[in-house]
């Protein structure tokens, strides 16, 4: 009996330690707004990683690149290739945007999966990838929406709105609906993937802490990388589609 109550207490204690908290965030008050501080903190860490490594790598550019410079040049070539394939000829000015999307999402996903965030404990909520918050992903998706609208309007002026009745005017409601579903699908795809992977890993860890979560963690790394690539490619594809020439 003693052993039973003791084990129940232990289990409860374990539950209190390794409880999975979803939805309870760590709030800061800025002005009249409640800000999700844990997302901000992890975002700052991701930004620091990106900016720091970039400035370190391009400090002393050589003609024959050294390791860091070579790696970053390779990444840049990859992003350029993605933009060029999707946007076409005028891809040059959009490479920074696509590159930022890709690198931010990629590094935040992988930092959420690889860095031991749970060592730092917050009063409420916990630190994890910044993209597991719907606000982050919706912000990124809305930025992409604004970007492709801007691209279409600067290229074609008000004639951009003529694309709503291509190829036939019957498809007008569907084309208008598309403008809403594009950011919706982008944000939810990314959010769902990242949060779900994180939850699966946390649940598996709380059940069988030692070896079993490892394959799932690898799967998580793989899918989060793919999701970053998909987000960037789709953003480029939307921009390219709205800048398409006259039929």
């Amino acid at each position, binding site marked *: 009996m003693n052993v039973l109550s003791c084990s129940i207490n232990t289990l409860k204690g374990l539950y209190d330690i390794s409880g999975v908290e979803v939805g309870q965030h760590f709030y800061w008050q800025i002005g009249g707004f409640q800000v999700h501080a844990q997302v901000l903190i992890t975002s700052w860490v991701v930004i620091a990683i990106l900016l720091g490594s970039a400035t370190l790598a391009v400090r002393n550019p050589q003609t024959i690149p050294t390791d860091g410079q070579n790696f970053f040049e390779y990444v840049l070539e990859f992003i350029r290739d993605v933009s060029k394939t999707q946007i076409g000829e005028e891809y040059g000015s959009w490479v920074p945007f696509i590159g930022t999307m890709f690198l931010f999402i990629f590094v935040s996903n992988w930092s959420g999966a690889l860095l031991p965030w749970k060592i*730092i404990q917050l009063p409420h909520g916990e630190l994890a990838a910044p993209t597991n918050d719907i606000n982050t992903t919706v912000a990124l998706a809305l930025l992409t929406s604004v970007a492709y609208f801007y691209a279409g309007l600067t290229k074609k002026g008000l004639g951009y709105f003529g694309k709503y009745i291509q190829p036939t005017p019957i498809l007008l409601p569907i084309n208008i609906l598309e403008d809403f579903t594009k950011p919706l699908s982008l944000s939810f795809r990314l959010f769902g993937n990242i949060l779900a992977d994180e939850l699966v890993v946390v649940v598996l860890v709380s059940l069988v802490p030692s070896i079993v979560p490892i394959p799932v963690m690898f799967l998580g790394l793989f899918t989060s990388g793919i999701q970053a690539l998909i987000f960037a490619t789709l953003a480029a594809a939307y921009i390219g589609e709205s800048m398409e020439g006259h039929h």
Partner: protein
Amino acid sequence: MKNVTDSFVSLGHWPSAGGFGFNTDILATNPINLSVVLGVLIFFGKGVLSDLLDNRKQRILNTIRNSEELREGAIEQLEKARARLRKVEMEADQYRVNGYSEIEREKLNLINSTYNTLEQLENYKNETIHFEQQRAINQVRQRVLQQALQGALGTINSCLNKELHLRTISANIGMFGSMKEIRNN
């Protein structure tokens, strides 16, 4: 055992009272799995990544070397072409200088020979004229002589009659007689 788990639990409970802190529960923070994942990632990823980056570096090196070699080749060819140009220019200059003097000489030679030929022809002309002149004068003399002789003959023939013949003979006899007298004396 309860004490151990109690202290274990209390360690985990302490920061969730509302402040920050470090979670040292290794079961929740998952460092073993993370380190395994990181280790495998770095182990395999390093190989793949360094391969990719080495390939890229080699490609860049080769491109640079190729373009350097092409540049060297082009510079060499430029130098060769320039040297040929200089040589040809010098030869052209020489030809020009030599050629002009030769042209002058040829010109003079031609002029001289033409002059000589002209002189010779002039001489021939003069001789021929002289010769013709002489011939004409001779012809005229001959004619004149012929005319004179013919006239004389005609005159004689017309003046020759018996009386003149008698007088001439008597003159001659008289002359022969006087000559004989002179010779006898």
